[in-house]
């Protein structure tokens, strides 16, 4: 079953092309991650999915309903958490939740079981104003507010931005629990490492969807060999490495330099020779596993070369 179908969608604001030719499908009961930096077009795309914006071109259907024609139906079963947590700072935790419950025609009591895992953490602060909550707490409260009407689809726009690693981890655990209860969850994030926590991901940059697959597939698509070396004169070594044409990328990574070569043929042995030819001897070359950041950079490069 497909829950969301995005079909050739374009959206511009004046001269700025926010989303271009975006097409992908989100399966039902899936935790789907839209991965990309700020300004990639994630928010615009999410606003179109949640019926807040109309695409210039193409169409989007959510559980079979068209986002333009049937927007009222979609709004009934969609929970949306905008990028800036949409909370009323001058209302308390309890008041915020009750308010969102009433506007969806329900009560906190009726759907308490839905928000219980998250809300139980917030309950000690029931009477605290939302403005006095920490980032992690605000995020949890906003999630409760988006969940209170038992939505089929949950759309979360950068819920983990600016939130510390601990809260982020807890948040992802909660999302998995929600997914297990049958929800479809669409979440966007600029943190590449969070891709691993999704069932499926789409990589987005400059308004375009560059790739989409399961996280495992995305990682396994990364075929170029990746190595790590430790050097004393890091900046000098970096210059040298960059002058070698077969080396695709070299960048500093803490005390190390990470190096990606252009093909399997140029492996550790080849690298060792190249380095000693240039007077860098006795370096330890260790192969490293690509992470999502490497994949993302690769996807951007592939996408651009394929198009030009």
């Amino acid at each position, binding site marked *: 079953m497909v829950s969301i179908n995005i079909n050739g969608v374009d959206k511009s604001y004046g001269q700025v092309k926010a989303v271009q030719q975006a097409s992908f499908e989100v399966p039902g009961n899936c935790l789907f991650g839209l991965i990309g930096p700020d300004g990639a077009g994630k928010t615009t795309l999410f606003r179109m999915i949640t019926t807040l914006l109309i695409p210039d071109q193409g169409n989007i259907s959510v559980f079979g309903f068209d986002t333009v024609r049937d927007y009222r139906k979609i709004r009934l079963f969609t929970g949306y958490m905008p990028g800036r947590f949409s909370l009323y700072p001058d209302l308390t935790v309890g008041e915020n939740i009750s308010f969102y419950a009433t506007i969806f025609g329900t009560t906190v009591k009726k759907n308490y079981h839905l928000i219980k895992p998250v809300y139980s953490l917030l309950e000690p602060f029931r009477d605290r104003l939302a403005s006095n909550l920490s980032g992690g707490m605000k995020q949890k409260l906003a999630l409760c507010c988006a969940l209170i009407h038992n939505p089929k689809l949950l759309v979360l726009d950068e819920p983990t931005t600016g939130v510390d690693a601990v*809260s982020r981890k807890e948040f992802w655990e909660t999302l998995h629990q929600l997914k297990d209860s049958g929800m479809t969850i669409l979440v966007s994030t600029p943190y590449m490492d969070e891709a691993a926590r999704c069932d499926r991901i789409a990589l987005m940059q400059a308004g375009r969807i560059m790739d989409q697959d399961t996280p495992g597939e995305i990682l396994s698509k990364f075929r170029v060999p990746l190595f790590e070396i430790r050097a004393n004169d890091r900046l000098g070594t970096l210059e040298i490495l960059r002058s070698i044409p077969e080396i695709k990328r070299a960048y500093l990574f803490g005390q190390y330099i990470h190096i990606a070569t252009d093909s399997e043929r140029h492996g550790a042995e080849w690298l060792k020779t190249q380095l000693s030819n240039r007077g860098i001897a006795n370096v330890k070359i260790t192969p490293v596993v690509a992470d999502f950041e490497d994949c993302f950079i690769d996807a951007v490069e592939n996408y651009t070369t394929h198009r030009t």
Partner: protein
Amino acid sequence: MNQRKTIISVNNLVKKFGGFVANDNLTFDVHEGEIFGFLGANGAGKTTAIRILCGLSYPTSGKILVSGFDVYTQREEIKRNIGYMSQKFSLYEDLNIRENIRFYGGIYGMSSSAIRRKTDELIEELDLSDIAGTLIRDIPLGWRQKVAFSVAVFHEPKIVFLDEPTGGVDPLTRRQFWEHIYRAAARGITVFITTHYMDEAEYCERVSIMAEGRIEALDSPENLKNNYGVKTMDEVFLKIARK
């Protein structure tokens, strides 16, 4: 390494807001030319400490020297010797790149010929000559942050404070950004940085991790990982901050 000069020295720093203790007896040193990671969960007290180190607020007690100057009595001297950049405020959106750089040069009292010369150098170095006249609001976030960093170190401060400088920046630009940081550090500028990206913690020479107002751990990433018997800084962080 141990012979390096201390540039920030914090002894028993305490900051209270009413009954709430935001910084509970912090003691640590930062070495000259070091990249020092200042980590902690939201609300652990990082921002409070940074504000004190930048001379923006007074500590409740403790002896703190920044670049040799006392945070109680020599705040003006401190401000002249530091650079600051945060994710939220860095550049004026309705000025173009060149104007922003010049403006900051002017703030630090550089002569106009020096400003002009350094501005050109900087734009050249950042490879932004083509768009030097473009308004900041019209350029991508990643570039903006690169410009912002260059502006923060434009007056060659002794220390630069970076408060979550790379949030939301695309991976490639983030790596370039870090290269600028390394280059600045190689020139002898001390870099004091906070971040939510745990892989960036690995980029630092030494990392401190705060929880509930206290520094729970301070060491190089490698030692921290070994001490806690884990493979990544992410795990170190979770172990400490979740206690």
